[in-house]
């Protein structure tokens, strides 16, 4: 953990290249962090970093979303040229939340079907290959124990919607975010989802992920703002539970189908 120091400025939640990395509502993650900070009386602001601009090193949260092919290439180029700033900020206590395409780009590389390689920024030891079929649908992930979660232990099961063709393999010393209870996740046969490092979360969960999982949102906020007071999340938890139900029903149906098919 970094030293907790009193904040002298608003929490700056950075939405990186929203025009390029915003295909699936990932802006919602930034909105939720800003609002849950403000509702607690913690000043917070949403800072959009426009495509083509350098990524600054003074943000508290760096949110990378998912995008289409051409925009992904543009985004990767911008992220690579700002790699030093992102690393500097992370060392200084900032959080990286990387979703889907953004998750792939914080790793070493993404290799497409035709063998073409898109270089990431490699701040986490992982790489992704294009796979088939595309993994689309509700996903449920049980976060795994990890020192990163601190005294609270891991948050409860996460719900999201995944939509990706990537098969992501983690390096030997890197821990996943959680275990897949329903859906595809990293999709490389490991039955795990995402990546979790000190103040870095990479995941395939859209939905977007934070509006559906207020506990995860508050963990991230705690990492940048220190101790935070509890905040009502009854509505968000109702949404989360309804999506957990939907995801688990789908997962169970698939589990039964797989067993029946295996039996012939």
């Amino acid at each position: 953990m970094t030293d907790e120091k009193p904040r002298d400025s608003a929490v700056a939640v950075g939405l990186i290249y929203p025009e390029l990395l915003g295909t699936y509502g990932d802006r919602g993650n930034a909105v939720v962090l800003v609002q849950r900070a403000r509702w607690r009386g913690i000043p917070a602001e949403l800072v959009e970093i426009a495509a083509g601009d350098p990524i600054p090193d003074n943000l508290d949260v760096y949110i990378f979303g998912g995008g289409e092919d051409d925009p992904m290439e543009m985004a990767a180029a911008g992220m690579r040229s700002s790699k030093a700033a992102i690393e500097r900020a992370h060392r200084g206590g900032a959080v990286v939340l990387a979703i889907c395409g953004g998750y792939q780009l914080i790793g070493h590389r993404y290799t497409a079907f035709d063998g073409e390689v898109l270089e990431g920024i490699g701040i986490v030891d992982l790489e992704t290959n294009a796979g088939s079929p595309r993994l689309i649908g509700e996903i449920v992930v049980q976060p795994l124990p990890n020192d990163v979660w601190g005294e609270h232990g891991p948050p409860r099961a996460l719900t999201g919607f995944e939509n990706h063709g990537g098969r992501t393999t983690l390096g030997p010393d890197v821990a996943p975010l959680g275990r897949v209870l329903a859906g595809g996740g990293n999709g490389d046969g490991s039955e795990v989802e995402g990546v979790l490092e000190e103040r870095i979360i990479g995941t395939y969960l859209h939905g977007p992920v934070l509006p559906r999982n207020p506990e995860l949102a508050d963990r991230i906020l705690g990492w940048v703002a220190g101790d935070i007071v509890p905040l009502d999340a009854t509505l968000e938890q109702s949404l989360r539970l309804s999506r957990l139900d939907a995801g688990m029903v789908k997962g169970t149906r698939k589990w039964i189908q797989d067993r029946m098919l295996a039996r012939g």
Partner: protein
Amino acid sequence: MSASTRTKVGVVAGRFAGWLSRTITRGQGATISGRVINKIAPNALQELAEGQRVTLVSATNGKTTTTRFLATALAADGRTVTTNSTGANLASGIAPTLAKATGPGEAVLEVDERVLSKMVDPLAVELLVLGNLSRDQLDRYGEVHALSAAWRETTEAHPELAVIANSSDPHVVWAAMPAKVTWVALGLGWRSDAATCPECGALLSWSVDRFDCPSCGFAQPETENRLDGTDLVLDGERIPLSIALPGTWNLANAALAVMAAAHLGVEPSVAAGALDTVTSVAGRYMSVPLGDSREARVLLAKNPAGWTEVLRFLHHRDTAVVIAVNARVADGKDPSWLWDVPYELLRGKQTAAAGERRLDVAVRLRYAEVDYAIEPDPIMAARALPGDEVHIVATYTQFSALYRKFGYGQ
């Protein structure tokens, strides 16, 4: 069996299937009847289109309304018009539409963006009308760029094909360019799906009223034809578009329709003068009774671009709003677009979250700091809201349910 007998049998069988569908399931029957026709008579489209001058209308948003406007404009000029007025816009819906034609005339057909390319050859199309392309049901259909690439293959294969196209949409421009295009600038609306150049992938540069690519030179085509307030400026002439349908987006639909009618030989003022007779299009903009002397107006919004237009419209009105959202296959199973749309524009209004995904809507409204109630049924939700004016904005399957219940005769 000769081909034409095949087609006749196919059409009769298809109509029977459609009747069954309407009778048993209260569907509109066009899709199932088309499937039957296509199965029995694979050449039905070519044969049925004989004697028809075919115009195809496609876009992510507005194709049903633009089609209705164009059909209305042609009818006002005394033409015989065949059109798919129920919005059945796949190959399976188009065959039964053409089969209903009683003689030679104009066929004005709305086609789904994904099947446009497959329709151009069999129907020997005279004119394409292309409105806009943006993200829609991404979990099912893949990406915007793939759609515009498919359109472009068609125009490259038909460089002599006449096209009326919106010059303000980069994807449409890139798709239409290889053909013989008459451009009209409909204004820049939703641009979140066009950050990069369709031609070379570089970042597009956007100004208030135009786009261009600093890297390869791809740019918004120059044209004097444009939507200017509530007027269409066409060949230097200013044509007022007085329409009964709400919203800026319908002025854009009207402008496209008048452009297309003019291409087909209708005097623009005659075409424009007929458009105010259109008050509801396949249930869009219909009014439904709330049972307490009030009525709610129903708007269909299928994707972020459509929602954004609708919210801008509602923002300026003193109205209560029901947001009715499902996420079934026909809606797109991923409602994450809720977070791409500025619900903040509803601040200060009374709203309700309805539909199967009302909790997703409610969470979105909470974070937008909009007051909301939660009620599954959109009519019950509307009834519980105060005020003289209520709008129900619905995704496709929510809208369809309302249309089935209240839409006949509208």
